[in-house]
């Protein structure tokens, strides 16, 4: 199968090495240089759950057209530390050029068909002042390979390390050394970079984690609490670091029950709260989410998935917590669940989560995963004027009753200390003033009032997005972070009878889903878990069985190539999954 998509040109670089070698800093710098030069960039990190050592890697794709999905293809591998892990080794092909120091790696790559390109990295970094410059030398090699002119690069270095002249100077030397090597590596092949790049210089690099945090702010988030847990910590870190700028009350709490109960308290008093966590922490929050349900308290919960059960794999990815999100919290109450499929969606759906939570006075879950959190690419600046304006809270009248049904079945929301009325909230079943009630009729009417909101939420559910031909025979169905991967796999498949249907809201599901599924001869559900949670949801909701399943639960995200290959095996093999 041809792995270069026709009409686009891109290169895939993989840089790997021990934690603490500055790979992350260099990744950021490198991608910034490439993006500013008008190239499109994608970067995705995978790492071990340790602070030093190990062997981590980052994949950087650079192209003349948008690149926004993980690829298995490695055009170049730049290993810094021996002991390259199996997930990288398996991707080495005869088309992979391994650029490494022969003296350091010895025979590690013997037996692979990949051409070895020796680089005297040890000698180069010794001259520069130490191993810490190795990643920057490699960045220089990659930039040289793309053809971005050196003066542009040096300018970026000065900007990147501004205020630290010494550091900037040595990094400039390191980058230049690598750059010359990269130019030689390119040889006669045409550079990706050319003078008439089509980018207007208005692209920004954004990762899923920052997109969720910034989307929350745009959605009016004024309170955030959480307990550090990969891969959800980045959102809390971002909000905490920028709490003054964005006027958010942020607290790292003692445990997840504290986070969610603080958030529900803040919501009761009129804040727009966010809690951010991963599966284990989310499980601990279950009771609090149920509390938001009965109190009808707006609450946004960011659940960033990693493989379970229990501690599972702390720094890896999975889509195994869909069922947890759907069924978390005891009792029955309405909720919405968004599962962004791109970095832009992570921003807009994070903001939208606050809007839905606020208008329907109920918890909303934003379901992401490690892959989306730790992936970035170039995007246009999200246009915040597209967001629905936030509503206002009115002062309460003297005879205010918090849970009076109101005309639409949704109560008018007052807050304590604003108006002449009193505002109550109760975790028990309660009457219209929020006082405990064991009356059977009150129970029935309050339960129906709460659950009645789900229909209204469904009315404005996001429809799934179709990529590919409208008159498809085969439909690849996916949700959340696999969207861009599945979308790019279509181009690799090169079939005119196959489309992708991507869901970014998984509950409640949009009514159009049924027609989309029914129109296909073969429905293939692609999801990052072992038991087919989304497939089961579709069957339970619409009574439609998938014909084939593609599942993955090794802790790694799908790649474009793996997706195309597995779809192709199904379609060409004709038999079951």
């Amino acid at each position, binding site marked *: 199968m041809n792995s270069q998509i026709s009409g686009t040109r891109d290169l895939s670089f993989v840089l790997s090495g021990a934690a603490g070698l500055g790979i992350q800093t260099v990744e950021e710098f490198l991608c910034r240089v490439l993006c500013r030069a008008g190239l499109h960039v994608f970067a995705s990190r995978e790492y071990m759950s340790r602070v030093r050592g190990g062997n981590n890697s980052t994949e950087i794709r650079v192209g003349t057209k948008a690149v926004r999905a993980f690829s298995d293809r490695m055009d170049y591998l730049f290993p810094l530390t021996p002991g390259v892990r199996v997930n990288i080794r398996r991707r080495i092909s005869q088309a992979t050029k391994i650029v490494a120091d022969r003296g350091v790696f010895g025979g590690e790559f013997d037996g692979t068909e990949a051409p070895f390109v020796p680089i005297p990295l040890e000698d180069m970094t010794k001259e520069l002042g130490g191993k810490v410059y190795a990643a920057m030398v490699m960045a220089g090699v990659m930039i040289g390979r793309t053809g971005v002119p050196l003066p542009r690069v040096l300018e970026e270095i000065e900007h990147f390390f501004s205020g630290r002249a010494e550091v900037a100077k040595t990094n400039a030397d390191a980058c230049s050394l690598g750059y010359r090597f990269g130019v030689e590596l390119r040889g006669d092949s045409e550079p990706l970079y050319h003078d008439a790049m089509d980018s207007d*210089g208005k692209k920004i690099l954004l990762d899923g984690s920052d997109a969720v945090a910034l989307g929350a*702010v745009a959605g009016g988030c004024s309170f955030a609490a959480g307990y550090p847990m990969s891969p959800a910590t980045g959102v809390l870190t971002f909000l905490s670091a920028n709490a003054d700028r964005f*006027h958010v009350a942020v607290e790292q709490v003692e445990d997840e029950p504290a986070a969610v109960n603080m958030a529900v308290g803040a919501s009761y008093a009129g804040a727009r709260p966010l809690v951010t966590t991963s599966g284990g922490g989310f499980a601990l929050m279950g009771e609090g989410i149920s509390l938001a349900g009965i109190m009808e308290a707006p609450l946004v919960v960011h659940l960033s998935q990693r493989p379970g059960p229990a501690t599972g794999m702390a720094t890896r990815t999975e889509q195994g917590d869909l069922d947890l999100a759907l069924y978390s919290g005891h009792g029955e109450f309405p909720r919405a669940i968004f599962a962004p499929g791109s970095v832009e969606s992570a921003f807009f759906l994070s903001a939208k989560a606050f809007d839905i939570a606020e208008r329907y006075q109920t918890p909303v879950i934003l379901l992401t995963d490690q892959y989306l959190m730790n992936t970035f690419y170039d995007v246009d600046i999200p246009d915040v004027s597209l967001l629905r304006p936030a509503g206002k809270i009115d002062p309460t009248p003297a005879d205010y009753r918090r849970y009076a049904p109101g005309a639409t079945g949704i109560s008018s929301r007052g807050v304590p200390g604003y108006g002449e009325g009193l505002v109550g909230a109760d975790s028990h079943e309660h009457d219209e003033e929020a006082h405990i009630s064991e009356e059977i009729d009150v129970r029935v009417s309050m339960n129906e009032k709460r659950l009645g909101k789900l229909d209204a939420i469904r009315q404005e559910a996001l429809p799934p997005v179709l990529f590919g031909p409208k008159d498809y025979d085969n439909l690849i169905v996916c949700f959340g972070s696999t969207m861009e991967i599945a979308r790019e796999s279509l181009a690799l498949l090169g079939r005119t009878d196959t489309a992708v249907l991507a869901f970014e809201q998984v509950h409640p599901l949009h009514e159009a889903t049924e027609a989309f599924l029914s129109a296909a001869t073969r429905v293939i559900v692609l999801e990052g878990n072992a038991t087919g949670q989304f497939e089961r949801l579709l069957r339970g909701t619409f009574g439609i069985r998938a014909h084939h399943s593609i599942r993955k639960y090794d802790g790694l995200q799908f790649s474009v190539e793996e997706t195309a290959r597995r779809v192709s095996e199904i379609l060409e093999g004709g038999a079951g999954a």
Partner: protein
Amino acid sequence: MTANPFDMEHGELSWCPGCGDYAILDALKKALLGLGLSPQQVVLVSGIGQAAKMPHYLRSNFFNGLHGRALSAATGIKAANPELTVIAVGGDGDMYGEGGNHFTHTIRRNPDLTVLVCDNMVYGLTKGQASPTSPRGFVTPMQRKGVRAEPFNPLAAALVQGATFVARAFAGDVERTTAIMQRAIRHRGFSLVDIFQPCVTFNKVNTYAWFKENTRMLEPDRKADDFREALDLALSPAPYPLGVLYEAEGPETFEKGLGAFTDDSRPLFMREPDLGSVRAWFEGLLR
């Protein structure tokens, strides 16, 4: 007698006749009236238990949340609107058992909250099991051979975690309990009032008579700013001291240090999404 705006018309209370909770409710209403607060300014926050039902019998804003989580909810409420007077109330099981971790860390955080713990050394709502403050050897239907764990010392624990107002009251003395509550509510920062209270149904050991015999009054006007002395009092065996053990100027409150209030003192419900700052952040990425 003038009408108390915190008095509430309600049906039958779910407390047993003779329960200490009646006196504590009475003292709280008197304390709030005496401080000149209005029901609109006050939020009474509770978890689950018999004492935690108090918000349903007192006219004010209220948040009756989950078992053990009153202090977390109260902290969130105070953070969202620092202008509110936030008081958390609950029993010993709720605050020191299920909520033990929040008790510790809320003290460290120092929000301007008042915490009233109706401490009867037994579980009432679930019918008579041991609580974290039950004495060693206390026999219950669950602890047939008597409690085998050391009782939790809330006053000492609060002191060593840095609480700057720590007091103990007795439900049998409404007047002094009212006065202590008022001092606690006026205190800036976290304040704890552990209130000895008999459970007339499930605790046949720690009765009104027992509390009278096993407590002693501290001088109401004593200077209470000596930490070591307060700790000695907290650790002292029976007769247990009643009154304010410790009262000192505390560090900056939790809510005051939040980024949300750096240059904007309005409560959070008055804010609009800060789209300008988001736009500026994105534009900064282009530079």
